[in-house]
């Protein structure tokens, strides 16, 4: 069991590359973050920013090759998942650290009943008998508030609605009372109302278990609703790290600022919604220096020189922008 506030998963300087016919492509570059018991950490970024790749790499489910971990550690309670053998890692991933994916229809095995798939966790990691495992699976379905769970345990994934199927995914991920849940865009494919229900369910179950949650999303709204802390990623780099409240109120990095600015809100009614100009860079052609500079409204020549380091601007607040971090450092002095 976890003690409150304990650091459960600590990722440090993780770099992942993909081998492509056009040479290696760096999808994740020097990413660090950590999640504590009871905490919800959101990793925010557009598609291609490397947010999913980082978690898939540390849990070992990334296809390697073509993927390759260049450097970095990912410590689960002090044990480095990346340095471990596959066998050792399997005792943690799937048991203490579990995952939920975006598209529940394709993420569940279509020819196995949901009960069998949930029961498989108990069978493999706990060695329960088939009968006991199925009984526990039904209990789990009940816990994620699927009506008539005892009967539905025999149903197949395609027989559930999108929201119910995502609950099944959750039941499977939470079956073994994990310490860390990594939810990769768990609500993206769902209707807004169902989305809220699922997020609420995750929050409730998290509170019951004092579990750490890593929530990967591109939706700032989701972040503001449920996350305690947020890590903003752009083109494989962490550009800002802060508590959710601070990041939303006083974004430091221009990218975070741009994201916030392009959120529709009541204040902006009647005005044209501001957007970040341009499109995210292809990982094959990331601009030199700061990857965001080509879209940044306040970019200066210095930005092209080197990749801005992630610097602490205030306690618990880091950002990677030479303009903002150096200015605030100067102000701090």
């Amino acid at each position, binding site marked *: 069991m976890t003690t409150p506030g304990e650091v459960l998963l600590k990722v440090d300087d993780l770099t992942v590359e993909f081998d492509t016919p056009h040479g290696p492509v760096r999808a994740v570059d020097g990413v660090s973050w950590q999640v504590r018991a009871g905490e919800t950490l959101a990793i925010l970024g557009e598609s291609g920013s490397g947010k999913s790749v980082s978690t898939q790499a540390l849990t070992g489910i990334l296809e390697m090759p073509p993927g390759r971990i260049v450097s970095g550690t990912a410590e689960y309670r002090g044990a480095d998942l990346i340095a471990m053998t596959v066998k050792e*890692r399997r005792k943690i991933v799937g*048991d203490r650290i*579990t995952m939920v994916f975006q598209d529940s229809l394709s*993420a569940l*095995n*279509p020819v*196995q*009943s949901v009960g069998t798939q949930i029961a498989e966790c108990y069978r493999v990691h706990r060695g329960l008998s088939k009968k006991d495992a199925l009984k526990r699976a039904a209990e789990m379905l009940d816990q994620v508030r699927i009506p008539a769970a005892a009967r539905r345990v025999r149903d*197949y994934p395609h027989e559930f609605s999108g929201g119910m199927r995502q609950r099944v995914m959750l039941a*499977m991920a939470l079956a073994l009372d994990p310490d860390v849940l990594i939810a990769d865009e768990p609500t993206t494919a769902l209707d807004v109302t169902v989305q809220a229900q699922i997020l609420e369910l995750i929050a409730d179950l998290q509170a019951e278990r004092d579990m750490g949650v890593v929530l990967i999303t591109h939706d700032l709204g989701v972040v503001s609703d449920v996350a305690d802390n947020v890590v903003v990623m752009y083109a494989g780099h962490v550009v800002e790290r802060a508590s959710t409240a601070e990041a939303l109120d006083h974004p430091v990095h221009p990218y975070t600022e741009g994201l916030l600015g392009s959120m529709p809100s009541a204040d902006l009614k009647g005005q044209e919604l501001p957007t970040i100009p341009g499109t995210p860079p292809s990982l094959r052609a990331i601009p030199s220096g700061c990857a965001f500079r080509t879209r940044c409204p306040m970019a200066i020549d210095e930005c092209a020189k080197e990749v801005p380091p992630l610097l602490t601007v205030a306690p618990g607040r880091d950002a990677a922008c030479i303009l903002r971090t150096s200015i605030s450092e100067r102000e701090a002095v």
Partner: protein
Amino acid sequence: MIRFILRRILAAIPIGLIVTLGVFALVFAMPGDPLRELAGDKPIPAAVLAAKRAQYHLDDPFIVQYLLSMKDMFTGHFGTTFAGADIADQLRLRIPVTLKLATLGLVFQWIAGLLFGLYAGFKRNGVMDRLLLLATLVVLAVPGLVLYFTGQYLFGVELKWLPVSGTRDGWPMSYLLPAICIGITGFAGLARLTRTSIVDTANSDFVKTARAKGLGEQRILWRHVLPNALLPVVTLMGIDFAGIFAGAVLAESIFNLPGLGQFMFQAIKLKEGGVVVLLSTLAFLMFILINLAVDVIYGAIDPRVRNV
């Protein structure tokens, strides 16, 4: 399930009617008088000719011929061939020959196709995988006819490992060579499909989920990848099964095996309308049954198509 089967059988009835009627029309639209052709230059006594004409309902209007033939067929009165052989006896002799050939050919084809396909799929991009892809391309490209002849010449005539033709050496020696040839022509497609299917399935999201559940690779392979990857393979195996009787026509005529395919072929040559229709109907029934079996098996392994 029973309703599903009944519905399929009901749907097959009109198709069966059209198919048999079509074959019957084609056969009887064939040029020439079947009886005269059979007799060749020899004069036939008028009385014999008349008897034969009556037996085959040759003097009735077309549609009556058809209905009478159908009635005879379904009541088991197959009659005799023009040459006087009892058709029921012929079937009794020939069905086992074709069945033995088809079964053995299928066994070779399925075992080779699945083994190679599974191996290549599991060890994709390895040396064996590449070799296999090349080999299957060549096998698919070389026409069946060439393959059968080459096999016959190489293993029968030159190396003398197996009988060249006929059934003198009995089961299973006489059947080995033609069955191996059928197996070789058929296995390549199955192997390629199996491989493609495994590779595709191994990249699907639920395999990622299984990995995230901390399952071992073996378990992932056998419990998650294979059951899904084999779905299209089962369909192809069914198609192969249904098609093997057409392939038997070729194999039986090259290797001179007295089976149904050869019977069919001779019947067409001799304009034995009744026999052609009978054998076509048999082929059709077989086809429907096999497809039904494939659908039932498919329903058993893929929950998504149940209750449809």
